């Protein structure tokens, strides 16, 4: 079996890098590297994670500085070359929308407050590389954000729906997101952005392993793709 490799990108202010690394390397058993924000070479990985946190302190606007980091040029190349899968979690999702790699924007929660809670999300599309092995209709996952209120133009929203790119919806909308959207995919289904944190629900000690289903889907997809290619 071809071995799968992952990396977790670290921006100044990122704070879920170690959690994500732990989930991938220790729980999923995927060799995983940290990649620093100034890395500008080829990202030779099957999985690229943009983790949660407060890149550049979330100053001015979430993700707005991180988007200009050298590593984002490498990420853009990775996307163009369709090398592997990208998952942006929380602040990672915010950076992906700022970079234009995913549509829409994440704005201040309607409550104007930070929200930390465990929420249920419905899986809307089980065919994506990120959900194909999910065994449940909905997943219980932690959220922790101030800016998770997903906004998108009417036209782009219609396109998302037509292409089946809304991957997750909140069962009870915590932040005001349009149409309860919790996660969306790129047109080629190789980039996922989501506000809930699968890496925080990856370990039986913490009494919730729903997040593993997402990582497992990614691994299953990449393995089948490798087999198909070889």
């Amino acid at each position, binding site marked *: 079996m071809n071995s799968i490799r992952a990396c977790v990108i670290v921006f100044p202010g990122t704070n879920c890098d170690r959690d994500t690394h732990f989930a991938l390397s220790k729980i999923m058993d995927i060799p995983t590297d940290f990649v620093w924000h100034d890395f500008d070479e080829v990202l030779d990985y099957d999985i690229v994670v943009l983790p949660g946190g407060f890149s550049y302190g979330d100053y001015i606007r979430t993700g707005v500085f991180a988007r200009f980091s050298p590593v984002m040029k490498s990420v853009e190349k990775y996307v163009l070359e369709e090398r592997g899968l990208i998952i942006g979690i929380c602040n990672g999702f915010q950076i992906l929308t700022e970079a234009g790699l995913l549509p829409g924007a994440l704005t201040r929660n309607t409550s104007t407050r*930070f929200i930390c809670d465990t929420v249920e999300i419905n899986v809307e599309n089980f065919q994506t590389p990120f959900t194909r092995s999910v065994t449940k209709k909905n997943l219980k996952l932690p959220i922790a954000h101030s800016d998770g209120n997903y906004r998108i133009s009417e036209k782009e929203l219609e396109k998302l729906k037509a292409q089946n790119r809304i991957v997750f919806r909140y069962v009870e909308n915590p932040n005001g997101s349009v149409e309860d959207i919790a996660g969306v995919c790129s047109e080629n289904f190789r980039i996922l952005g989501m506000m809930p944190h699968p890496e925080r629900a990856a370990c039986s000690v*913490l009494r919730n392993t729903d997040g593993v289903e997402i990582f497992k889907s990614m691994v299953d997809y990449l393995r089948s793709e490798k087999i198909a290619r070889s």
Partner: protein
Amino acid sequence: MLDHKKVGISDREYGLIKQILKREPNDIELLLYSAMWSEHCGYKHSKRLLKKLPGGSSGENAGFVKIEDNFIVFKVESHNHPSAVEPFQGAATGIGGIIRDIIAMGARPIALADSLWFGPIEDSQSRHIFEGVVRGISSYGNSIGVPTVAGEVHFDESYKTNPLVNVLALGVCKELKSAKAKGVGNSFVLVGSKTGRDGIHGAAFASRELSDDTDSDRPSVQVGDPFSEKELIEATLEIIRLPQVIAVQDLGAAGLLSSTSEMVSKGNLGAVLYLDRVPLREKDMKPEEIILSESQERMMFLVEKGKENEVIEIAKKHLLDASIVGETTADKNYKLIWKDEVVANVPVESLGEAPDFYRKVEKADYVEKLKRLKIPKINKPVSEILKKLFSSPEIASKKWVYRQYDHTVQTNTVILPGEADSAIMWIKNSKKGIGLTIDGNGRYVYLDPFEGSKNVVFEAARNLVATGCKPLGITDCMNFGNPEKDDVFWQFEQSILGISEACNSLKIPVTGGNVSFYNESTSGRAIYPTPVIGMVGVIEDVSKALTMSFKNTADYVYLVGRTSIRERNIGGSLYLKLLENFVGGSIDTVDTEYELKLQNFILKMIDSGVLNSAHDVSDGGLLTSICECCISGNKGIDLFFTENIEELFGEVQSRFVITVKPEFTEIFEAMAKKENIEYLHLGFVRSDFRLFLNDKEIIDFGSIKSLYDSTLNRWMEEEF
């Protein structure tokens, strides 16, 4: 020439300074003593008494306990005065400061807990402070990626205009770092944010009311930048791995001055600092402003001479400033140089030797008067009392607060806020967990400073025990009024003695802490004496961590420990305060031997898997605790118990409400009898959400739960 009294130096102290220097101090030197001999830095009123605490302080930035080869470093600190003036920044910088104490020990911070005390929620100013403090903690703690996992929030007239904001941080490491300087000629490398004028005289500000012209001064409150703090955490943890790094110290109260002078004092050395080499944020700063600035997010490293570059490179990588600002000397003097001129030169140990203001004081009169007050009888239906309690912000759910704190980042949080009496943090790569709780009770300590303080320590221990954790050590934050007043000083002394006794009997150390005096309302009334206890414990197997919720229908519900209130020692009970505004009578006291036996018994029962839930009985008494278990588990109860109001709501020590699976009740009862532990079978868990007392329905939990869930939201999210 500065007037020494204007900077908080008494005539007597001024005389001492002249003796030490054998001359008049210059203005800058006078300011150095003013800061270092302030109550906040110099512990003038408390240092003799603090020595009575068992375990003593390590003399380092924070104390620790050990779990196998892990050092669990923890400390609590107050940021009361700054939070009163500027709630958001006051609380935020409180977090920043205590986190730097933890990283200075070489530990990665993995948890925060806070104890918050405000005026009545009905008061709009108190709500404003509450709102700001919670936002400050949320904004700063969330950004730096350290979960806030435990805490308490209280509301009482006593804290109006003088809120208490006590923050505890906990970190873990395999190797400790020291603040002790070694070697002559080594370099002080200052890392972090640039230095500005913020927070000058912060230490003195925390130590008494400032003089009349403070209004025109810049505020003594600092401004926090969590992004720099996050970078400073990562940079510090990287820098201390370098072999050439000799010592580390954070910059807190009295900034550069206290950090460098304490480092060299510990190492029996002197220091020379070149103030013009400090990176500045503002123009035209004077040398005394630079040395006293309390600008946030700065750390000091003592590095072997000639090997500073690696340190500076790591700082730069994390977008931080770094510069060599001075060096250690052999002469034991503390010398400041500004533009090639010596602007201050004093014996360094004298800075750390603030005079001892201990004095003998008589027992406060008010205590006996309050004790003699008769406990009022309450003739109200149980359901009405329950509604009153659960709609008070004291008992109501604190979800509005902790939902704003990231409590799951770092993926160690086994028990989430609201689920149990203490938090449990998993130690990764092991089966073990760290229990953490923070607890205070101003009413108990006010009514009886000695016994009340003991109770607070034992209750903190019970919080840990209820989740399956064995207590290991405490950190204390002593919040009191003006120690120059005899009553306050007496309260402080008694409280220290009470904490000592409790810790001695639990055989756990006080690893460190903080004293905050001068907590008085604008009208000059002292707050309730409020020692806040942060306690850390261990659970050998985190999979056995227990929560308070009733879990299975038909489980047996027991009261374990003191099964009746006996001598009507229910003074200080919350229901008396909330229903009758009564604070008086005798508080219940802990029988230490009994308490220890009880705690060990509960730990044993949890470890052997006999219990399905456990909750300590505290604020609001027995029925309140039972209701909390029901609400948490979405279950009801068939309760068979006296309908006496004192028994239902009176607060006595040494009790737990637990549930046992029907198949284990025989074992449980046999074990309790064998160990001489009292228990009372209270009834059974019901599948529906209703409370029955002696076969009569008292209340549908739906109505209590909606009060419980909505009270804080209603006050904080609606317009009044």
